[in-house]
């Protein structure tokens, strides 16, 4: 004796948020039932395990049928099959596109290819996120990437419009797409202390200031690629370290400004040339795609680590970077003010964000 068929269809599609989350997390029906039983829903509603199983199966089926629509969230609004209230639709989409920071940290900057997808079981094992969920998240990244890759206009806005995501989530996706497109290295050991949100913040900075779209949103090209012209111009900054006079002047200006204001003054003074060289060299090399990938590792190795070993505080860091940036403008032979501002603005905020344990 067995229930052969068991369906429930409402005119308004009934979806339980909790079950949806379990489904998204990759639980099997039976595991989901167990979790629900532990959650105490049974006592609440005088239900039995059978009822719970039936309900869970039914919901899972509904989600599976909806999944195809969730791949193109815009369709969810004008499809006729399921009558779902708008707030529910928003919830479905938001949760479907939500991801685990742990997981995204693993694939951030990797090529969203079949090869990467094959390795997801390792990622799953490492992060504790179920493989099903990993796949969904990975496919989401890839889908968003594919759609916005070809689109003109601001990246975040495009994502928000095409996938109907809330602002913050759209920004995160912009970061993921941006990282995937530029293949930034994020997996090196030295970078492991950085969270996804750190990178997302940096990505936001880069997108807002270093891409072509940042200068002119009407431009043909879009937000996913860095502004080539700007990268070219960055080479000019080399003068700050190649010209001995300029370097010395720069140093003395910064030192004058900082004297007495920081506890790590001596270390700063001693290290100034190295640090400045590090930052300017990063700028000068960014024209090479390979070096773009190493942008973050370079920042850490060339700047953050030395400072950390000298026990700078973030206040020290802030002070230094502010004066370091501003002093360059006072140098009489230094002409590349615009490029310098554009470069250092991003570098400063990235470093400040990345400077933690």
């Amino acid at each position, binding site marked *: *004796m*067995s*229930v*052969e*068929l*068991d*369906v*429930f*269809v*409402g*005119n*308004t*599609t*009934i979806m339980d948020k909790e079950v949806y989350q379990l489904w998204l997390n990759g639980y099997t029906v039976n595991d989901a039932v167990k979790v629900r039983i532990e959650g105490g829903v049974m006592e*609440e*509603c*005088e*239900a*039995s395990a*059978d*009822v*719970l199983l*039936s*309900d869970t*199966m*039914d919901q899972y*089926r*509904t989600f*599976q*049928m909806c999944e195809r629509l969730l791949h193109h969230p815009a*369709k969810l609004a*004008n*499809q*006729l*099959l*399921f*009558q779902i*209230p708008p707030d529910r639709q928003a919830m479905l989409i938001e949760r479907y596109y939500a991801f685990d920071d742990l997981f995204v940290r693993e694939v951030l900057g990797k090529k969203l290819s079949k090869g990467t997808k094959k390795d997801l079981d390792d990622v799953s094992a490492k992060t504790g996120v179920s493989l099903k969920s990993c796949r969904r998240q990975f496919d989401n990244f890839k889908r968003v990437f594919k759609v916005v890759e070809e689109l003109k206009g601001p990246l975040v806005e495009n994502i928000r419009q095409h996938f109907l995501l809330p602002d913050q989530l759209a920004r995160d996706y912009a970061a993921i797409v941006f990282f995937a497109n530029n293949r930034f290295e994020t997996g090196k050991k030295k970078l492991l202390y950085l969270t996804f949100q750190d990178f997302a913040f940096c990505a936001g900075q880069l997108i807002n200031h270093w891409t072509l779209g940042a200068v002119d949103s009407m431009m043909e090209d879009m937000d996913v690629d860095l502004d080539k012209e700007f990268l070219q111009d960055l080479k000019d900054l080399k003068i700050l370290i190649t010209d001995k006079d300029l370097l010395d002047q720069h140093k003395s200006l910064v030192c004058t400004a900082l004297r007495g204001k920081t506890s790590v003054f001596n270390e700063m003074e001693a290290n100034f040339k190295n640090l400045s060289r590090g930052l300017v060299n990063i700028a000068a090399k960014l024209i090479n795609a390979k070096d773009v990938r190493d942008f973050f590792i370079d920042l850490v190795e060339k700047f953050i680590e030395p400072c950390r070993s000298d026990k700078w505080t973030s206040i020290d860091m802030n002070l230094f970077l502010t004066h370091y940036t501003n002093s360059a403008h006072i140098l009489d032979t230094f002409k590349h003010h615009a490029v310098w501002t554009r470069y250092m603005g991003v570098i400063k905020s990235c470093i400040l964000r990345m400077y933690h344990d």
Partner: protein
Amino acid sequence: MPGKLKAKIVAGRHLPVMDRASDLTDAFVEVKFGNTTYKTDVYPKSLNPQWNSEWFKFEVDDEDLQDEPLQITVLDHDTYSANDAIGKVYIDIDPLLCSEAATVISGWLPIYDTIHGIRGEINVLVKVDLFNDLNRFRQSSCGVKFFCTTSIPRCYRAIMVHGFVEELVVNEDPEYQWIDRIRTPRASNEARQRLIFLMSGELQRKIGLKVLEMGGNAVVGYLQCFDLEGESGLVVRAIGTACTLEKISTLPSTATHQSNSSPSKDMKDSPQAAPSTLGCRSTHSSPVHSASSRLSQGFSVSVPTLLFAGMGSGGSAGKEAGPLKALLRQQTQSALEQRGVSSSSEAFVRTGEYPFFTLTSFPSGFLLHVGGVVSARSVKLLDRIHNPALGNTRSYKLLDWNSFTADEPETRDAWWEEIRQEIKSHAKALGCHAVVGYSESTSICEEVCILSASGTAAILSSRFMQDGPLDTEHRFEEVVPPGCGFCHIPYDELNIPFPAQLTYCYSCRRSKVPDVLFTTIDLPADANITGKGCLIQARLCRTKKKAQGEGNATAISNLLPFLEYELHTQLMNKLKLRGMNALFGLRIQISVGETMLLGLASATGVYLTALPGPGGIQIAGKTPSDITYEQHISNMQKKINDTIAKNKDLYEINPPEVVEEIIGSPIPEPRQRSRLFRSQSESSDEVSELDLSHGKKDAFVLEIDDTDAVEDIHALLTDSPTPQGFYSCNTEIMPGIQNWTSAIQMFTSVRVFRLNNANLTNQGLNKIFSDLCENLLKSLYFKLRSMVPCCLCHLNFTVAIPEDELIQVAVTAVAMSFDKEQILENGKQSGEKTLTKAITENDEQLQFNLELNPESSHANPLSSPKGLSEVGSHPSARAPSVDYSSFADRCSSWIEQLRLKAHTIRRGSVKTTSSMEKASPLPEGRSRSLRSNRSYSGTSVAVVKMTPLSFIPGAKIIKYLGIINMFFIRETTSLREEGGVSGFLHSFIAEVFAMVRAHVAALGGNAVVSYSMKECVFMENPNKNQAQCLINVSGDAVIFVRESELEAASVQPQSTTHTSNGGEGT
């Protein structure tokens, strides 16, 4: 050319990819009506084509307009091979033919394929220009409005209720044509879908004609069903109630209207009408041979019919059945003979023959008295059709069966005729001249078909009726008190057709009422009730030996009376267990399978203030000497008493105490009570001499010496109570709850259960079946827990036995939230609460005593109101051990009456002549929710509400756009890939909902009311990875406006009536 149909194909979206190479589609559209087809251009390489076609124009007869659907086919153009069909859309243009309904169909409609389901959407515009005055074209019935709603639709007022209309159309089922062997499943499904569309259209047109004949302009309570008889064909049949409705407006009615609805003159103006379409009754069905011989063999008309009167049921069978059958046969045959030779007008006279009404709720003052439930069943053998005329090239066309059936008296029509006659005579036996809440159904298994009809015998006010339908002798013009009048017995107290316990009405004290009342209608809006109601279900499974043909039919007809009896017993017990005294919306479904019969009776129990309180249930054992046994019994008794007490609490049943005991004992001397059990139990002989009316005892006695009875008691007690915050009923609204919020959720749930164990006992099966239903309910409560406090209304269960070991249960209902604050608001009784409680306790005490000392019970001073439900506790009254006193034997009496009135039955009424003398505008209670005449404002939202009820809480229906009647087939050959049977059916039901919503939206509507899923036939073959499902749904498309939106602008003439109460079942 009375009509021009115009269609424009605007665009498509979300089309499937038809060309793998390009991932795109080259789509074009064929628009077909009748035999004319137009095509759009091909819109290349797009999944969202913009055709923006010209207007395609079809010049057609309005008859065709009614019969045919507009068929839109979307195809993928292929240069080298045949074009691939993407899918189809059938558009019923009937709503456009009525000036008061929709004017244009415009919107996105799902493109449907029977193999792939919905494949994108198409945007179309459809209009109809009718050239001529509608009234002159009587072969069509354009302009007759159809409503599924079983009450007077909310924005209309009934000028006249004309009565019963019925029609049926038969054709060969395309699935069983020889050509089906060589065509694709898709072609076969499409042929079937199209055929049913055509047949429905024709049926509706013909019913419309009858309505016009009767002088009406609308059909209310339109119920269309189809019977898949397999090889013997496909029957589409419909019943309804013809009415003359008038739109409620500020203008005081009628001038235009009257001219409109006095068609007798018009009829004569267009004489071609009658002979051409009406004369040939294409409704006749299979040319069954040897029908009459079967009849005499005694299984073709098994007539194990029941008549549930106020308090019980009586079975006809045995000796009485014989003459009855003979009589019926005689009648029907003579009627048929007449029909055969007579002209069409004769045929029309017939329609007035049955004073039946498919309505379940009525304008106030219409329903005077209710007698009780009447039902009739009959088992028939379907015969194979061997007819050379079938299967020819006209197969897509409706076949005119007239030629074959002229000399075949045994037709589907005649079958129903028989049943209706019987219903009518049952009603007469109850002293009633009408049957309300009438419905018909069938259950088919292989070649056996059970036809069932049921309704509620009643006396109606002639205010709304013409002279025709009712016997003059029964015309009552008395004024009945609104709150209780309908409970007053319609039959003669001294000559009641069954033994009944009558008391004076507890409300008005003037007339007699029965102790229990069963009905198939909704609770009248003005009825006085105590507490709240609840869903009561009786479930039963009976095994049956596999058999063929006549033997099978005989076996089934032999089982039916027992089935009905037990269902009735269960209902009665459960009713008492809940401390209630009346059932509304009773619907008994009997489903037949190869090895079993299923019976499911659903109803909503209520405590009618006018009726006496129910007695308790008392358990008695046969061997009182055994102490442990007695203990066991007293334990059980205690449990039952506890349950009753709990239920009374739960449903807030605290009837005001009736102090005076002057009522005396109005129990009339029962005539021939001895035959109480005749047909129901084999023991009829032993019982026949019993006087079951001895003494007056409070309780109903259950004897548990019998294992059956133990089962029964267990079943009684295992019905789990509804969880906190939930109520349920199968009527339009929950008695006792009024303040609905606007949150509604309609749903359909289907379960199929496989019995792997072949050798199950009846008890085992019963338990499984009962659990199945209970679990389903539990699941529903769980699913809908977020809506608490809420009530599941119109819970409509449908059972079927799709295969040998499968039981299918389908439920459609609506969950409605209500405001908690006022649910207790039944006002008056609060003060008496404590008092009543004391009495209840007292009662229980007494019951307990009773059980211990059965002898003393006679002396118990329980001539109180509660004491009236009678007990048959005589030791030898074993039978199926549950004895309810009210079980009636009314055979002889109604046979007599039948005989007397035989001639009136046959030609009881002529209604083609309509005098409109009663057309004066009536002040009308139903209009209470109509609050203003501000025009509607809300189609901006694409949301379409669906509900099986006739109203939407917190909203006002401002326009009826026409009937929705859709039939879909879905088939798959990749069952596993679609998620198994559940996945397959889940998406199909979702698709059906989607299509209903889309069509309603295209008509400009925002809701479907009176929605029902009338058929859900599911077949699977997992081994072949295949499944097929047929679904038939119907409802009324409407536009509603939220009352809150209207609030401001309401200058309301009807404000006084509005206050009476809200939300009941009009």
